[in-house]
């Protein structure tokens, strides 16, 4: 059996979850703690990929990152690199589609942290950066981890946007969800079944972990 879809999926999901951990938490913190012009817009904009059909998100990504895309054409002119049909494109698709889940979850978690603790840290001379890592982050830990686990699961299952910008190239961009589709279409029911069972088990595991996290107080 060809394990490349499994390896690729785990790699793509792990990488996008790392990006999400960094930027998702940052955006969530800004949304939860800062008041600025366009905050609601930012909130809506970062929620959009969760609401839009993934194919629509994929379409936007092509317009942005394709060889003739708004950003893509500059990347291509500068480096000669076209992101379409690469595993990096799969990472971008998974990240964009899954990051709203992290932002929602982390924002709620950070908002639930009593702001008095942060103020106390400020008065004790800690910078905002230190306060974030020493006070806010540990107190919001549960929600952040739950958000990450769910984002990882969403990234692992990403299909629509991925097939549009990364294609379905065996061994290169064919992640598990895409490999299931390809195996099913070409009549390789054994491979399809194996991958389906595996993804189902991972999903059950994710649900188990997230409920455990939310229960432990």
């Amino acid at each position: 059996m060809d394990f490349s879809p499994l390896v690729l999926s785990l790699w793509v999901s792990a990488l996008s979850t790392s990006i999400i951990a960094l930027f998702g938490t940052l955006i969530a913190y800004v949304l939860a703690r800062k008041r600025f012009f366009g905050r609601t817009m930012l909130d809506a904009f970062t929620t959009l990929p969760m609401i839009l059909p993934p194919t629509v998100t994929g379409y936007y990504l092509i317009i942005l990152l394709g060889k003739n895309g708004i950003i893509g054409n500059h990347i291509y002119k500068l480096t000669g690199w076209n992101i379409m049909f690469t595993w990096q494109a799969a990472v971008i698709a998974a990240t964009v589609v899954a990051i709203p889940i992290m932002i929602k979850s982390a924002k709620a978690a950070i908002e639930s942290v009593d702001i008095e603790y942060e103020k106390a840290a400020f008065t004790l001379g800690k910078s905002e950066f230190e306060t974030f890592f020493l006070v806010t982050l540990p107190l919001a830990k549960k929600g952040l981890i739950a958000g990450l686990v769910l984002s990882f699961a969403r990234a692992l299952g990403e299909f629509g946007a991925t097939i549009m910008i990364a294609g379905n190239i065996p061994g290169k961009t064919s992640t598990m969800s895409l490999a299931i589709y390809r195996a099913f279409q070409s009549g390789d029911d054994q491979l399809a079944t194996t991958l389906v069972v595996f993804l189902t088990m991972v999903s059950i595991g994710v649900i188990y972990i997230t409920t455990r996290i939310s229960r432990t107080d």
Partner: protein
Amino acid sequence: MKIKSLLTIFLIAAMIVAPSGCLSEKSNETKPVEITFSAAISLSDALKDMGTEFQKKNPEVKINFNFGASGTLEKQIEQGASVDIFASASQLEMESLDGKGLIIKSTRTNFTRNKLVIIAPSRLTIEELKTLDKIAIGDPKTVPAGRYAQTFLENTGFFEMLKSKLIFAENVRQVLDYVERGEVDAGFVYFSDTLKSNLSVSSINDSLYPPILYPIAIVNDSQQPAISRQFIDYIQSNEGQTILSKYGFG
């Protein structure tokens, strides 16, 4: 609470409106005889044209087309999709359905042919493919055009060398789309796909891949075999064949 009651109202409204909508549609005079035609996507423009002409002559008939990669359509029929006519871009898919007893053998016939070409922003030779970065072909597992392209590349001895440059598309029209959008440098498509395109077409030696013959047949559990037969006859008539040649087939 508010959302819940809104949802309830919406659901009730949907339940009232939906069935009455269906009823009013049905009560309009005689209902049309509908047939579903699963066909290789390369045939889409020509078949839609033929469908329009056929429906003009037979206003009681409505043809629903289902276009896709021949392999995908074959699997749909295997899984019990209710389809009346199947036309594929290669014998393999038809053979497989035939072997499983899913088509009416006596209705199987080849009705047109096509050629494989290379499409790219400028004309190129096979040797020049080596200098390119990305080349799109249909996924050989489900797309006949991709299988023909693979055979061609194997026969010319370029397959191993170009393997890492190949981008698999879901159907032959997606190959065309990838090349037109500039996401890949070249692609293997049918000659008939290129007529609407402004890109350059490079012909290739057609003795290096199997002849591209399109088979058609009525699916075994078709509810409308008579009408289906009529439409297949129309496709094979002079008028049908003229339309096909207008779209680059034959």
